[in-house]
């Protein structure tokens, strides 16, 4: 884990689009950092940084919602790879054949990588005044890993605030 001064980088990296997604908008790279008493979300372009702090004592909840984005990309990449590999059967020209094989392989590798990264999710952090999406935690595996790391830290920081229900609820029997 990268460490810079008082901040430790948490796993995950994502992007967020501000403004329009394709027209008149811009892309921000999102990273999450662990500070001494707060979480720092940095949204950066090449030349500036915007950051939001979430103090541990103010964090009310993290929510996770699994999305179908990874599945959609698997389908798209699979279809594209299939199309290109299919055309290699029909093509007689050797140069074109190698081009189609190359492009098909790129899509196939992308598909494999996307599959191995696992399902996608949307992670949000909730405080009393805002609910913010943690754009760097886009993969479920990464989000679980980071939340597993953060939960004891936040609970320790909030020690002393009475909760009417137990923090840990056992999973329901299957």
């Amino acid at each position, binding site marked *: 884990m990268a460490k810079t001064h008082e901040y430790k980088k948490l796993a995950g990296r994502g992007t967020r689009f501000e403004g329009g997604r394709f027209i008149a908008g811009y892309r921000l790279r999102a990273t999450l950092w662990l500070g001494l008493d707060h979480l720092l979300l940095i949204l950066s372009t090449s030349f*500036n940084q915007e*950051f939001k702090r979430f103090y541990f004592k*103010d964090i009310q909840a993290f929510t996770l919602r699994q999305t179908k984005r990874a599945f959609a990309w698997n389908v798209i990449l699979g279809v594209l790879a299939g199309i290109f590999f299919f055309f290699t059967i029909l093509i007689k020209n050797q140069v074109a054949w190698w081009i189609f094989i190359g492009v098909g392989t790129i899509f196939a590798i992308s598909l494999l990588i996307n599959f191995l990264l696992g399902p996608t999710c949307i992670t949000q952090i*909730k405080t009393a005044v805002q609910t913010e999406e943690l754009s760097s935690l886009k993969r479920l595996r990464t989000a679980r890993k980071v939340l597993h790391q953060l939960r004891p830290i936040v609970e320790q920081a909030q020690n002393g605030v009475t909760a009417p229900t137990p923090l840990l609820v056992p999973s329901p029997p299957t």
Partner: protein
Amino acid sequence: MSQIQLVTCSKCRAAIPPDIFNLEPLTPCLSCGNPIGAFIFPALYREQKMVSAERVMLEGEAGCFYHPEKKAILPCESCGRFLCALCDVDLNGQHLCPNCLDTGKKKGKLKSLENRRVLYDRIALTAAIVPMLFIWTTIIGAPIALYVAIRYWKAPGSILGGSKIRFVIAIILASMQILAWLGILVYALVK
């Protein structure tokens, strides 16, 4: 009386029932069916206290600078003005008046309120390197890089810290480019 804040599904905004809080395998949302998880902390149950300022009751009691009829409870740690409970802004243990908070934010003195930084070192380095792809554009890029590097040398960089190495490289590259152009100019004049 405490008011529990709702935790909602990020898709359909339906309230997540407490019986699925802190469950490790994701559970389908009762409204939209998407697998969701909610991990809550004691702050969710924290009582939201209503703040009200007491009126000055006794002669001689200090009144707030901004509300003279309200009783002062502490001074601003920046300007020393007396503040009532309404005017007191608690910023991570530091008590400030609204004026000092606003001034501190504008002047960049309150680091915890800072939420944006321009990365001048990257601008200078980009201005020094990118024009090199087209050669002729360095005649514009090099002075810009040099100006930015010198003008913003002391400006705060990335919030994550770092050295001035980008500024140094930009100054070196820009200086070399300017010297090269001067050399070409001198050669052309002499010839």
